[in-house]
């Protein structure tokens, strides 16, 4: 089974890194994976996004028209992917920065105050990890442990001192995601 995840945000918000970490975790979990970034002019303003496809078999198309999961770090990303996310898919977004509701029916839209939670973990720049944690709680593409290991192995060296903060943000996001699952079950 193939799963597709798009991570999208402003350049500098860590959308591409979040997608890479997911890809590293998938590979370490014995899965097939592709990661492909947007590399056009959007890197210099606007949204930067990447597509991660994970599966049991070698991946065919590394790009998808309608991703199953979208992690949106800013408003332009919600605007862009709200109509594109697959029917029955998941849209996880940072509700600290995106203050409008998602109106599309037939998708699971999850508002996570990611920047606010990230601030408590040390820096609003950890919002990508908070949202990744929420995503994994709702769609366990890989386990949180695998993601934690990917962070330990692949966090850029210059940020090595922030590993604990990153892990904290990841798990805080996962707790919020789990809360969503339970709320839905009720």
């Amino acid at each position, binding site marked *: 089974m193939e799963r597709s995840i798009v991570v999208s945000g402003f350049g500098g918000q860590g959308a591409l890194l979040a997608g*890479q970490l997911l*890809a590293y975790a998938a590979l370490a979990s014995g899965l097939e994976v592709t990661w*492909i970034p947007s590399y056009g002019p959007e890197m210099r303003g606007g949204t930067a996004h990447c597509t991660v496809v994970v599966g049991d078999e*070698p991946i*065919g*198309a*590394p*790009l998808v*028209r309608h991703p199953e999961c979208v992690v949106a770090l800013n408003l332009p990303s919600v605007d862009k992917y709200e109509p594109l996310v697959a029917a029955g898919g998941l849209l996880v977004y940072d509700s600290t920065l995106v203050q409008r509701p998602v109106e599309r029916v037939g998708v699971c839209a999850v508002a996570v105050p990611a920047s606010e939670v990230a601030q408590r973990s040390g820096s609003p720049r950890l919002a990508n990890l908070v949202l990744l944690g929420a995503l994994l709680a709702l769609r366990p593409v890989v386990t949180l442990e695998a993601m934690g290991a990917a962070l330990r192995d692949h966090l850029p060296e210059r940020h090595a001192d922030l590993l604990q903060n990153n892990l904290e943000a990841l798990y805080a996001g996962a707790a919020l995601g789990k809360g969503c699952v339970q709320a839905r079950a009720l």
Partner: protein
Amino acid sequence: MARELWKGNEALAEAAVRAGAEAFFGYPITPQTELLEYMARRMPELGRTFLQAESEVAAIHMVYGAACAGVRALSSSSSPGISLMQEGLSYLAGSEVPCVLVDIMRGGPGLGNIQPSQSDYFQLTRSAGHGDFHPLVLAPATVQEAVDLMYGSFELAFGWRTLVILAGDGTLGQMMEPVEMPPMRALAVERPDWALTGAAGRPPRVISSLYLDAAELEESNLRLQAKLRQMAATQQRWEGFCVEDADYLVVAFGTVARIAQSAVRAARRAGIRAGLFRPVTLWPYPRQPLEAICPQLRGVLVVEMNGGQMVEDVRCVVRERVPVRFLGHLGGVIPMPDEIEAELAQLVSLSGRAALS
């Protein structure tokens, strides 16, 4: 060895290093710049040569010079840069000096854009420079295949004394995929018997593409043509997916082939007996294997990121026997599996009608 996640451009560079590349000359251009950037760090680290030239024209002539000395030299660029290199490519071909070149294609013509494209197909297979020659053109579809083809490319180049071009596109260059890297090869110590290594103690050797006498130039050309015929007969490579019982064949190369593979899977689920034919060599085109599949087919769909280039090779083989449809996107637009599937469905209804009438 464990599989690691590599970006296409960087994987190509490391594979070239492990294959025994001794010198890299290049000039940056998106979407292949990471290849050059990786080489800028990696080659000096190993005591090998990296040089950023002042232009693509200079870079390919530096490759020519190094290769004349029997050195395993390579360069890489993207479409507009390849156009600039064409003079050098023709000289390399005319003097039968081997080298390896990577083209990570982007949208054209002109400056175009930096998005993925396959619109250099004619240029690479038919007219990589003036005069009568073809480079050996390889088209990987995955990062692993890019690594494997690069690893074998110097053997091909030196074995045939030919130009080997690896043709990818922006998707392949920018994508990360799991890769198992081959082992590091020792550098070649012996130089070929044609290489310019200093004539002390032996008669001097000459490498040139200049033959002022018409009969002499024709003779040199005929030698080259004979070699190209031999390459064409022995070097055709392709991969198939679900071809054995296929009624309908999708033909695509590189990135588009892997996208088409998803479409073929979906078509199979919908009850269409579809298959995928993926040329690995664009020149020589795998005509013989395609011909062998032809009799079982009811229709062919060619998908490319260009206005219809490889489709001409396919039509040469298939001729009028069954319908050949073409789906193309240009300018960096990437075809998606669902539209390939829709085209396949069209082909099925079209061929069905043709069979009835």
